[in-house]
């Protein structure tokens, strides 16, 4: 990853004068496993500005959650290990900072919302107490004052009867209300950066929309930088400003959200978008990207997506494509990004009719 790529955009829509709120440079995270070293994140780059929403999109195992945990500093180490890179918050590298300074940022300036609010809230402590703890520990408030602030936060995230319900326990709330409590806890100290790791995945569809709306409103109100980690393309389209598509611990494509949807510059993104079921597609087969992501302990040479790619050539199997500028504010890690972007790439194979794998077009040709 060269300097020019990280400094070039991938911050579309922001004026060049803004100092980035959060800047991740060439981040590498590994896990020691019995099968060997699993390289969960391999040279990740992105920047986040105040008021901006970055969606990190990817399948399970693509490194989305590990990215979030590494930024928060809550990665289990061991087995995890940060093999290289920088995470800069307002210019200071979080990875070289001492633990005490980092702890003070955590929760206060950089906060996180987890996927499953039921297991992420402490089951034996009242929710009001858990929110108030933020004020007591970070702001040194007295019990009573902190509780009043907690109730205020609960009201802000739309919990009816907040005053009475502050003494209730997590299991006494519905899923949507629990996630609101998580949000109240995360935004309690007015953080600059909010990381939401699949915040709506565990919720009913109707509740999902409400919670996303709330997050979006709060972001605008507090001018937070929001990192939204998800595999839900629908959620992304609604709220994100820009998207980073991750695959095997790398960013495959990064661009403005409209640009990504309209003109994807990477075959993987194309595949993802094509796999969204359409309501007007009556009775057709669901389209999927065939194959599975590669094992993190045994990465194929060349492009990590090449075994599943419809356009893969010999070059893709030997030479790893770097993330590079394809169009204004649009980065892609594909050798043929321009062709894919323009829709003129040549298919070298097509999905098998059963969807089980890929068939080489060249092998089939003589028939």
């Amino acid at each position: 990853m060269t300097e020019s790529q990280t400094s070039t955009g991938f911050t579309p829509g922001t004026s060049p004068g803004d100092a980035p709120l959060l800047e991740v440079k060439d981040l590498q995270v590994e896990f020691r496993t019995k099968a060997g070293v699993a390289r969960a994140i391999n040279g990740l780059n992105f920047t986040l500005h105040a008021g901006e929403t970055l969606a990190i999109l990817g399948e399970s195992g693509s490194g989305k959650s590990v990215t979030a945990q590494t930024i928060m500093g809550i990665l289990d180490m061991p087995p995890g290990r940060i093999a290289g890179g920088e995470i800069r918050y307002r210019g200071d590298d979080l990875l070289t900072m001492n633990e005490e300074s980092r702890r003070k940022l955590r929760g206060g300036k950089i906060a996180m919302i987890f996927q499953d609010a039921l297991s992420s809230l402490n089951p034996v402590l009242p929710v009001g107490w858990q929110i108030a703890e933020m004020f007591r520990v970070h702001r040194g408030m007295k019990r009573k004052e902190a509780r009043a602030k907690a109730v205020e936060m609960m009201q802000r995230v739309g919990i009816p009867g907040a005053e009475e319900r502050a003494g209730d326990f997590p299991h006494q709330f519905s899923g949507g209300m629990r996630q609101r409590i998580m949000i109240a806890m995360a935004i309690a100290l007015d953080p600059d950066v909010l990381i939401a790791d699949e915040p709506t995945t565990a919720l009913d569809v109707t509740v999902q929309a409400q919670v996303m709306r709330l997050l979006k409103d709060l972001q605008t109100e507090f001018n937070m930088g929001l990192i939204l980690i998800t595999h839900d393309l629908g959620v992304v389209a609604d709220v994100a400003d820009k998207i980073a598509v991750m695959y095997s611990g790398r960013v495959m494509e990064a661009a403005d959200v409209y640009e990504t949807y309209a003109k994807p510059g990477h075959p993987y993104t194309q595949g993802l978008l094509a796999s969204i079921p359409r309501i007007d597609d009556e009775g057709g087969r669901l389209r999927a990207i065939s194959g599975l992501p590669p094992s993190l302990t045994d990465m194929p040479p060349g492009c990590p997506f090449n075994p599943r790619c419809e356009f893969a050539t010999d070059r893709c199997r030997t030479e790893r494509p770097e993330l590079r500028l394809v169009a204004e504010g649009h980065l892609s890690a594909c050798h043929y990004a321009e062709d894919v972007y323009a829709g003129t790439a040549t298919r070298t194979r097509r999905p098998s009719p059963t969807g089980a794998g890929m068939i080489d077009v060249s092998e089939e040709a003589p028939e």
Partner: protein
Amino acid sequence: MTRYIIRRLLQFIPVILISTLIVYALVFAIPGDPIRALAGDRPMSDAVRETLREQYNLDDPFLVQYFKYIWGIVTALDFGSTFNGRPVTDIIEQRLPVTATLALVTLVIQTIMGVIAGILAALYRDRFFDRFVQVSTVAMVALPTLVIGFLLQLVFGLNLGWFPIAGINNGITSYILPALTMAAVSTGILARLVRSELLDSLKSDYVRTATAKGMKRTRVITRHGLRNSLIPAVTFIGADLASMLGGSIIVETIFNLPGLGQQVFNSIQGQEGTVVVGIVTLFVLFFVVINLIVDLLYGLLDPRIRYE
């Protein structure tokens, strides 16, 4: 809540009736004539023997004996007496403090040692202390109480001379070795329980949340991790305290402590049914009461549990 407690209290009645019946039947089933055993080698006239048999209802059928015994308790709070004419309540009054002290010292020792060892083992997982706890707890659980008792007597009583070997004439120090003996198994189990519960808890999502909230490590462990992992430990300690009286039979015999356990042992040998039943009933009552308290405490510690 009140309804729940009342229901539990009512359940005590059949539990106690059935357990006393079983104990009574077992004592009744011991072969031999208790009066002859009482007399030993000395001659005893038939008249005296008949009077004694009459006095203790020994010629009645078993069930009649049992109902006369229960009737005495219910109508006159008469728990019977020994063949020497000493009331059972008198014996209990005299011997209960010894057993209670033993149980209390044991409880303190096993709770402090077990919980602390468990916490440290979890925090220093796979390090030397953890391995030490793992190995030593296996030994503590596996060794029979008898062996541990004799070992402690030999090392700390005889060789080092730190604690008295037997009897209760040295105040609280007399109870140290018996309590350590009785605490051994439970300390081992408790240490392992706390260790695994705390490890589970430290891996949980809510502990991760606490860390992400920017809490200090000590606060994360004590307020969020330990709080949850000690709930099963409380249950175990309660159940163990309840069963401690049973354990006192062996330990009081090894260390010659004049407590209830020793009395039960002697009374079984002397076939003094009423004494055995009286003391065992006390044990059973203690057991069910402690269990009720533990259940209520459990509901208090874990808000997800509610009784109706």
